């Protein structure tokens, strides 16, 4: 039973991110309402608030923010976020940032390690920056 529940939970989140997902789980109109609410919800959310920061911060600082997130949240979470970002409508400069992040061979580059280390030492938690 847990396996079936696991499948439904995963299918719902996939359907919320991708309107074309085959396993919709819920009626389309309810999914659309939930999707819109998630995108609109500006408080207490991490990923959905980032586009605002992306616009406000510009490419370089936004890139740093992602690196900081990797430092705090781990690469797995950041990779999934970058995938989600790449599916959003992006400005050319933003798309370049996302493309670079997607093309990374692994979790850490020397520059990222240094930046993340400095940020951690400075006590800049990922959430602090993101929220």
């Amino acid at each position, binding site marked *: 039973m847990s396996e079936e*529940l696991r499948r*439904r939970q995963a299918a719902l989140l996939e359907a919320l991110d991708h309107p074309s997902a085959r396993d919709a789980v*819920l009626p389309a109109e309810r999914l659309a309402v939930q999707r819109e609410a998630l995108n609109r919800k*500006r408080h*207490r959310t991490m990923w959905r608030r980032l586009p605002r920061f992306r616009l406000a911060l510009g490419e370089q600082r936004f890139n740093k923010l992602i690196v900081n997130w990797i430092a705090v949240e781990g690469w797995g979470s950041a990779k*999934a976020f970058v995938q989600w970002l790449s599916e959003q409508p992006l400005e050319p400069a933003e798309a370049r940032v996302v493309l670079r992040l997607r093309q990374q061979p692994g979790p850490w580059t020397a520059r990222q390690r240094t930046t993340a280390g400095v940020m951690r030492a400075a006590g800049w*938690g990922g959430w*602090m920056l993101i929220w």
Partner: protein
Amino acid sequence: MRRMIPPGLGIGWRPEIAPFIDRRSDLRFVELLAENEDLRRPNHAVERLRERGLQVIPHGVSASFGSVDGYRPDSVRHLAGLARRYGSPLVSEHVAFVRAGGREAGHLIPVERTRAQLDVLVENVNRAQELLPVPIALENIAALFDWPGAELEPAEFLLELLQRTGALLLLDIANLHANAINTGADPLAFLRAFPRDRVAYLHVGGGHLENGIYHDSHLDPVDPAVFALIAKAAGLGPLPGLMLERDGDYPPELELQSELDRLAMAAGWAKPA
């Protein structure tokens, strides 16, 4: 009667309204969004409130107790760290999931009301409690939809979760209103279902109706129907601490004052001087 947060007003602490919170002298407690806090950097404004005698409740959003893939222990450890820092009487989280299948929802998603889901919640909450130095209160969330195939009523589901875990309830009265509109759940049945000694404290936040759907935005004034529900809850027995959640589009200070005054009146407490 075990009442973790005594009767009185509280508010969700946000930096934008920190000066207002400093000035409002009748507040008894503040709730702190755990994910906004960094344990390496003291929050001096909140520490001052603590010195003034206000209780501080760390409130998490990212533990994901409903996830079949398991909850997030780091989120719970963070709650524990904040509880130790501020001498909190309890911490709180949600009956929801925020991640599954390697994806993050970015916000609280309602759980199914099935036996299988209940077992997952019980296991996750029980494990999480081993990491906590204080009790945990679990909040009923606002839902935009109901999963099909529910095996239990909303109150029945939550009550069994509390019984099997020993957790307390953070009762969000505005969410009862939201769910009444969005899913047809009966708010009064919910209010009557819970023994008062299981209710740690109460939330209310603002929202708005749009195309027949109630959005629990925390960006709008509290709905008049929510004040009425508070009054009905007060009619069923004494209420514990009651707090306002406001997360943005902050109104002028007088409006915020007035909203808190109206909450106190609805709860049957004396209006502050």
